[in-house]
């Protein structure tokens, strides 16, 4: 707000008469535009606006007698304070006008509003928050600060050492420059070892010659190695082994094989076993889970994605058949064929080797019976499938020849107990022994 006052426009002018009033309340005015003309006993002068803004109030009309110091026009110029082109004491300003409106005795307030021989004091009835000696907005104290000199803090910053994580050796646990240098040295040594790991191995006792060939690990080999170490060292593996009488299944597959071949389908045991595994997993969900080590929570998955171990030229690959709980045996068979052939050609996409909830490995293809497979981290279990062979078994006190399928399952004993694994195996066995049950599910 700006108060345009009638200032002394010449030497010793005290009063004048409004000759012409140009300002109209509500109008916009630009700086330097003429507000009004005044006639004094010495001159006639145009009074221009010192600011731009909106004219709020015009206190004089043409012919009025005005005195030096009178507020003639009030302009809203957007400023938060009340400004004026001259200062006077004991004057009425818009700042003390509202106090009159509140019914306070006009005379004394007028006096007090500008109560000083000089200057302008902000006047407001704004009520601020009450106060007392105990009052304070309480906020919980934050973490304890570490002790360190600014030079130590700078050193830590320059060397990339997180000073908050250091333990100080100085007085009262102060972090000394030596502590930071030590931490920095340690960091660089760790980095050096990591950097030189491979050369160290290469430079070990035996060098390549005719008797020993040294082959650097491929990326895939390294990944397999890391995954195996991670799985074997974090998951306490427990193995359960069993044999299943799959004579029925063999008969069924032999019967269906020819028929399906004509339509271009290849029915494999693996697809039938995966079907059985899927049904059993839906029944025993704990085998279809994983452990969230960080949050210490068991994550049970409501979908089944089966990883299949594939022997590819570059090394073990585990492509994943997604949502086997929504696939038929033939669809599973097709997926196995598709994924394993593309694994051979290194044409798998990244998302096709991720996201398994359970893994199946078919070492029976190489004639083996039992094994101790390593769990595909973070799955809860892996099923090893051996070679189906005819064996003499006792059925109803008679020795008969049956087709026997050896199964080995490793499971994560942190989340799966032996009894859970046993029940799962029982369900799986029942399904594989009764083909109708397997196919009707």
């Amino acid at each position, binding site marked *: 707000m700006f108060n345009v006052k009638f200032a002394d426009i010449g030497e010793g002018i005290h009063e004048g008469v409004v000759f012409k009033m140009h300002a109209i309340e509500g109008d916009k005015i630009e700086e330097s535009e003429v507000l009004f003309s005044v006639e004094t006993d010495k001159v006639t002068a145009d009074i221009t606006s010192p600011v731009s803004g909106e004219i709020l109030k015009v206190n004089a009309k043409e012919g009025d007698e005005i005195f030096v110091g009178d507020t003639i026009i009030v302009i809203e110029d957007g400023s938060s304070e009340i400004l004026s082109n001259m200062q006077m004491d004991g004057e009425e300003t818009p700042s003390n006008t509202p106090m009159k409106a509140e019914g306070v005795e006009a005379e004394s307030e007028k006096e007090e509003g500008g109560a000083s021989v*000089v200057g302008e*004091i902000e006047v*407001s009835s704004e009520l601020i928050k009450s106060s007392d000696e105990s009052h304070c907005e309480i906020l919980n104290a934050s973490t304890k600060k570490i002790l*360190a000199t*600014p030079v130590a803090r700078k050193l830590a910053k320059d060397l990339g050492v997180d000073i908050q994580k250091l333990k100080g050796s100085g007085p009262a646990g102060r972090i000394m420059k030596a502590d930071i240098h030590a931490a920095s040295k340690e960091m660089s040594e760790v980095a050096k070892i990591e950097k030189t790991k491979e050369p160290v191995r290469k430079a070990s006792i035996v060098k390549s010659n005719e008797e020993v060939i040294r082959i650097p690990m491929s990326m895939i080999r390294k990944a397999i190695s890391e995954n195996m170490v991670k799985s074997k060292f974090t998951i306490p593996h427990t193995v359960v082994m069993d044999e299943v009488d799959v004579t029925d299944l063999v008969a069924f597959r032999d019967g269906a094989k020819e028929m399906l071949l004509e339509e271009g389908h290849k029915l494999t045991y693996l697809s039938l076993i995966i079907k059985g595994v899927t049904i059993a997993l839906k029944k025993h969900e704990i085998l279809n889970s994983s452990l969230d080590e960080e949050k210490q929570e068991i994550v049970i998955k409501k979908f089944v994605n089966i990883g299949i171990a594939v022997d590819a030229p570059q090394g073990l690959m585990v492509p994943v058949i997604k949502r086997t709980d929504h696939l038929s045996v033939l669809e599973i068979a097709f997926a196995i064929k598709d994924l394993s052939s593309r694994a051979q050609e290194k044409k798998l996409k990244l998302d096709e080797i991720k996201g398994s909830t359970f893994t199946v490995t078919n070492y029976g293809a190489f004639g083996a019976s039992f094994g101790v497979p390593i769990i595909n981290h973070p799955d809860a279990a892996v099923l090893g499938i051996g070679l189906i062979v005819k064996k003499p078994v006792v059925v109803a006190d008679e020795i008969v020849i049956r087709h026997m399928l050896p199964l080995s399952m490793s499971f994560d004993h942190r989340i799966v107990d032996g009894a859970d694994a046993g029940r799962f195996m029982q369900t799986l066995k029942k399904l594989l022994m009764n083909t109708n049950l397997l196919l009707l599910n």
Partner: protein
Amino acid sequence: MLVLNLIEAITDALDVEMGLDDSIVVFGEDVGFEGGVFRATKGLQKKYGEKRCFDTVLAEASIIGSGIGMAINGLKPVVELQFSGFMFPGYNQIVTHAARMRNRSRGAYTVPMVIRMPYGAGVRALEHHSESLEVLFAHIAGLKVVIPSTPYDAKGLMIAAIRDPDPVIFLEPKRIYRAFKQEVPEDDYVIPIGKAKILKEGNDLTVVSWGAMVRDVQNAIAIIEKEGFSIEHIDLRTISPIDRETIIESVKKTGRFVVVHEAAQSFGPGAELITIVNEGAFLYLEAPPTRIASPDIIVPLPKGEHHYLVNKNTIKDELEKVLKY
């Protein structure tokens, strides 16, 4: 509860204490009949008579000197100087006598006197009316220096100053004399001299201010806390003796320190506060202790005054630099 602005709270404090203690006398230029240049003593002469509230000649040395004499002889004078910029003729009396009487007399005499003076810029005044001279008093041994920032504190500190057995320089931030009101208890109460107040707790930065700057700092903090920072704001309230403990403990917690004052930067109160922080919380600092102050120039006349004082935006910018150091 009364609802008073800062100057009304001072009047109320004087009134309450004069009612309780007959030895209190109030005087200064225009203090009696007019009630003082800012009306701080309004109504007191009418209520307590011309012997307890009266006008003096226009002579600061005489006002303070006669006050010292009265104080030594059993009265409790509360004298007013119209502006702190006018105190220089009386400064000799303050430094060479008021501050030293207890020491000089080996404790036989004290000077229980309050010297009130409005101070500070931002009111578009003339020369000698806008200075912030707190260090000129705080540097002198034997003086206490008090600056309130709210009506509640003004009354409590004024009563404490009157009851103090030694001379207290009571600096009043005239810019906020009438800028806001606050609830103030009707009875007498004391806010201890030498105790700062934590207005708001926070974890990232400690800001110390006093007087009229408190409100500007509060406004700056309101802006910067929207960016997610947590600021601890301390109203110093007493410039001398400084409440070292409150400041040091706060900086130990936050690791950052800024002082905002209206006085000129060089050799100002901020320098002393930063030294206290360095002495007491050096090992906790994560950014340089910083002062936000007025430039080392004579306070400009009204036309240029807005260039002189820091405001919430300039304060906010400086706080941000320290927070992001």
